[in-house]
């Protein structure tokens, strides 16, 4: 089994997103470098907007990676580094939207729609099983009541049929 799996895993690993970090940017301390990489993955490149600065080859992304590393070396905690960049570019640079009043609709929107859908479905089936829609449909599809003339004709026909026996 491993004979099959190993090459497949190797190929998949080779195809994983390649970082744009150049060797000359990297910090000497691997722990610090790892922190810098993790922070960089959270920050959007403002030039090529769907990439993080960790993935982007844009020069501004490189400059931002260097700023991140610089802040780390000056002793900033991870969230301080992120705050430093957000102070300059706004929440926009965060690839993960922050949880706050202006983004509640983003976080709760899907839940809200799910609740609405369940409620709507419940209303629909309740109405169909019991009364409302069924009654409306019945009322709409029922033919208009017979006029006096029609009623008289019908009575006559029924009487005739009775006389002629069961022909229905």
């Amino acid at each position, binding site marked *: 089994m491993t004979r099959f799996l190993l090459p497949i895993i190797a190929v998949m690993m080779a195809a994983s997103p390649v970082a744009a970090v150049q060797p000359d940017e990297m910090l000497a301390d691997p722990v610090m470098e790892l922190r810098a990489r993790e922070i960089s993955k959270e920050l959007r490149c*403002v*030039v090529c*907007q769907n990439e993080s600065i960790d993935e982007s080859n844009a*020069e*501004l992304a490189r*400059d*931002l990676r*260097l*700023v991140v590393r610089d802040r780390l070396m000056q002793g900033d905690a991870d969230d301080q580094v992120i705050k430093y960049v*957000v*102070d*300059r*570019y*706004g929440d*926009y640079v965060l690839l993960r939207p922050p949880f706050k009043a202006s983004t509640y609709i983003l976080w709760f929107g899907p839940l809200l729609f799910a609740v609405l859908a369940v409620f709507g479905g419940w209303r629909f089936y309740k109405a169909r099983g019991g009364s*409302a*829609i069924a009654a*409306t449909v019945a009322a709409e599809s029922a033919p208009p009541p017979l006029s006096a003339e029609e009623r008289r004709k019908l009575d006559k026909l029924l009487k005739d049929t009775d006389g002629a026996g069961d022909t229905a």
Partner: protein
Amino acid sequence: MKKLIYLVPIVVLAALAVMFTVGLGRDPKTIPSVLIDRPVPSFALEALPDRGKPLSSTDLTGQVTLVNIFGSWCVACIAEHPILVNISKTGEVPIHGIAWREKDPRDAMRWLGRHGDPYDRVGHDADSRVAIDFGVTGAPETFVVDPKGVIRYKHIGPVTTEVWENTLKPLIAQLRKSP
């Protein structure tokens, strides 16, 4: 009344259509600046070679100024440059330049030699530190700074005659009257 519910999908579709149509006209590259109404970041940049007049944040107080981010590598900057040159000829407002990420600052000097030099002071930002402090996403960008050194407006992309006449000029006049 019951039948109105069948209109809901059409109304939702119409709302989405309007939203997307408006969205089509928007430039996704313009990111709202968080620096509006905040003081300019403090910085001190070196002058371009043989030009003198370096730029630092203390130069941005006392009067309304424009700060223009440009680079000799920036194509759109060539498009806006004649307009900046014209503005500087009228003497309406001092324009300071930040030459952004020049591999060799002499490139910026050559570029200014070729296209004209509308700037009062010019600082060279080689490693983007000041550009990042200004929240710059690309060149050109132009900031309007009030006499207290507070950023009041940011224009992304080339300044056109329309932008100058309709936005920047009225804003500068207003800031002079009631800062």
